[in-house]
């Protein structure tokens, strides 16, 4: 049976059952997503969402009070001022005082509504000082996540609806339908708890909208443009949302799942993912030819090394030169690889073990054969792999 905590909902559900209309599937509420017969906003997991809830509750109270007041007058009038009870029509049809009063009253009420809304709006648009920046790209019909800045930088993957659930939808969602029907994805977005996450949205084809109700976030992903929003999850858990801008036929099938992990769990996840990604990028056992590896090494050098060691490889000041350096020219590759993997001089030369084996092999090959270094030595990724385990 369904678990329903709301008595109103329970009553309604009872009526439905009587009418024989219930879909009669053992659906339960989805924590972090919608509840069965949910009648209010999704429980907040961020401060902003809490503020939105407060605003909504405030508006509901004000609107209900006005509604009841205004329509009590109307129904009183309907009750008392009927022809059938012998009421004779009055003849008034104008009163400047009343008109001014009831123009001013709503105006003042509206101002009092706008004040707290302004505060929340300004807060939710402030995307500065984020701890982690993730680019979200909408595709027809999946989401792409790229970790641009912060822990996990460089991660990049695609998030798809579980294909079994898509099939289930085609079959009419009969039988044993999972609780997270249309919400389960292969690769959820993973973020640390209590950190400000800046989401940059864009799209590849048409407009999509990245939305997670529990975070109070909804931001259109517009092709050709970047927009941003942010959230800071207050608790660990999994949270769900769905694409919220019509994007073609599979619009209903590109959910958003966000896993919020504790700081330690997140670090572990990011490390593991980065390693996996690096490993996936290049087979460390591939045997490279010189030109290919040299070219790649040039790129790696330009991205990571050139700032200190300079384009001419001569370094400067405390930075050691590579051009003509003994460790670079040596026939034994092990020492140079170890310097790259573990760093040197208390981190003046940082560790580059986050680079893939292939990248390290490439940049070593490049330094051994550039400038005046003409060793004709080739370092294969397999050698780096061996050194990693030492």
């Amino acid at each position, binding site marked *: 049976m369904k678990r329903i905590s709301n008595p109103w909902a329970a009553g309604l559900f009872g009526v*439905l059952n009587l009418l024989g209309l219930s*879909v009669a599937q053992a659906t339960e509420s989805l924590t972090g997503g919608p509840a069965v017969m949910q009648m209010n906003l999704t429980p907040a997991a961020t401060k902003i969402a809490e503020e*939105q809830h407060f605003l909504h509750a405030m508006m509901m109270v004000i609107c209900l009070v006005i509604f009841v007041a*205004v329509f009590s007058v109307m129904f009183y009038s*309907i009750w008392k001022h009927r022809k059938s009870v012998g*009421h004779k029509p009055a003849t008034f049809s104008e009163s400047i005082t009343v008109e001014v009063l009831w123009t001013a009253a709503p105006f003042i009420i509206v101002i009092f509504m706008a004040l707290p809304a302004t505060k929340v709006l300004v807060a939710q648009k402030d995307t500065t000082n984020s701890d982690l920046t993730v680019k979200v790209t909408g595709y027809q019909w999946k989401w792409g996540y790229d970790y641009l800045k912060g822990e996990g930088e460089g991660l990049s993957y695609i998030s798809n609806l579980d294909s079994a659930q898509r099939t289930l939808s085609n079959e009419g969602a009969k039988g044993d339908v999972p609780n997270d029907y249309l919400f389960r994805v292969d690769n959820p977005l993973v973020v640390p708890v209590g950190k400000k996450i800046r989401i940059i949205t864009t799209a590849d084809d048409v407009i999509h909208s990245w939305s997670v109700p529990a975070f109070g976030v909804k931001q259109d992903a517009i092709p050709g*443009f970047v927009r*941003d929003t942010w959230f800071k999850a207050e608790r660990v858990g999994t949270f769900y949302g769905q694409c919220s801008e*019509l994007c*073609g036929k599979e619009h209903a099938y590109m959910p958003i799942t966000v896993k919020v992990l504790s700081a330690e769990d997140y670090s572990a996840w990011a490390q593991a993912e980065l390693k996996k990604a690096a490993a996936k990028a290049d087979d460390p056992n591939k045997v490279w030819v010189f030109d290919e590896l040299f070219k790649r090494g040039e790129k790696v050098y330009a991205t990571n090394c050139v700032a200190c060691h300079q384009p001419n490889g001569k370094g400067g000041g405390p930075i050691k030169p590579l051009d003509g350096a003994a460790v670079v020219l040596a026939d034994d590759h092990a020492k140079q690889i170890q310097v790259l993997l573990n760093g040197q001089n208390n981190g003046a030369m940082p560790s580059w073990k986050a680079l893939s084996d292939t990248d390290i092999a490439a940049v070593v090959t490049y330094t051994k054969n550039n400038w005046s270094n003409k060793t004709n030595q080739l370092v294969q990724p397999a050698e780096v792999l061996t050194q990693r385990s030492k």
Partner: protein
Amino acid sequence: MSAVLDHHDHAHDGHDDHGHAMTGWRRWVYATNHKDIGTLYLLFAFTMLMVGGVLALMIRLELFQPGLQFFQPEFFNQLTTMHGLIMVFGAIMPAFVGFANWMIPLQIGASDMAFARMNNFSFWLMIPAALMLVTSFFMPGGAPAAGWTLYAPLTLQMGPTMDSGIFAMHILGASSIMGSINIIVTILNMRAPGMTLMKMPMFAWTWLITAYLLIAVMPVLAGAITMTLTDRHFGTSFFNPAAGGDPVMYQHIFWFFGHPEVYIMILPAFGIISQVVPAFARKKLFGYASMVYATSSIAILSFIVWAHHMFTTGMPVTGQLFFMYATMLIAVPTAVKIFNWIATMWRGSMTFETPMLFAVGFIFVFTMGGFTGLILAMAPIDIQLQDTYYVVAHFHYVLVAGSLFAMFSGVYYWMPKWTGVMYNETRGKIHFWVSLIAFNVTFFPMHFLGLAGMPRRYADYPMQFADFNAVASVGAFFFGFAQVYFFLFVVLPCMRGQGEKAAQKPWEGAEGLEWEVPSPAPFHTFENPPKLNAEANRIVA
């Protein structure tokens, strides 16, 4: 169609002087008489209401249960798109033009609309446009499926029917502009001597303002869809991001049309309610002047609020603040109108025939739509609700319980004048109560779905949303049947002349020149300008 209405020709009153009038199909195809054209408009609008309604019921059928049972998602998107387009451009707008054609000349003491032949043209233009829209379902690739808002760049992916849809909207827009010019010229030039603007009935006032809105924004829509067309076929890139275009610009242009459009669909409704409430309260409309000012300020404000439809596109904070404040401001004149109607009822001598029931129902349910509008106007809350079923609930509260209920009110109110017979009161009451209840059963649960985060335009949804969707679907079918009942058992008998013969002024408290002519209104009225009393609401012989 003509057979149904032929009793016009042999109505038994002495003023009947159209021996020379055309008969048979010619009467309708060559129609230049404002009453005939009004009838055509109303019948056309009702036909489109039925077509759009069938599409809506197909949507609700698919959404009755989670999972895809009847339609594939691409077809579902065609349904939502065409339901929106047909209801907005085919049902609501033409229906109000029908009311305007019938009632404005009668209310202001004019013999006909100013441009009788253009009037004919603007009606008959709509037929090919409607055919093009409806038959697009059977063309290669199916109907357009980009939503009624036709957002770029999704429109750039659509099949050839997108082009026929754009063409259809061009034609409908041209028709609307012609209709508006006709209405403005008629009202400004053809009022009977003594009927100053500030003595004019509210319905004519609201239409005057609406017509200006239409002329201002229909070309904007035409521009937006023309740019879409050239993006699709002629290598321009106004909205195509792949070539440097800006899809958000489309939304700005569309909603610059779209928001005044919302008021185009509700202001004439306000006008009808402002006629009906005083008639059945037997008391003059409270605050006539402030009603006129409130309507005008709503119209003016409608031009500076468009981007509240776009809070999630990522506007700068100052932009969001401006559009939030401006939108909330609209609550002020709207509240004034509600207060004025209730003050009109206050200490009146009310009876509750069907027109009044629909008017009170309108005030009650429309106000709910107004409040949800206010809630949606708050940008921080809108982030939660944008593009969810909350929005769907909101605009059906203002367009169905608002515009459509007001039109029903107007139909019942003026039906005796149009057909010369009284409608069946019991049937009218059945129609009202079934419509009111079924409407709320359909759309009230959508607020909950929206708050829980169910996005709109979804062919399938998570299990948690199943119950309220089932309720909504059941309500929708009852609502649909109620409208078929209305046509078959209320409208049709009246059109056939079956029923109690209506007096010249069947409503005790009704005021205005339309009640100064016999029922049914003769083919030609006010051929010579009538002489009016000081209030300009009676003819002094």
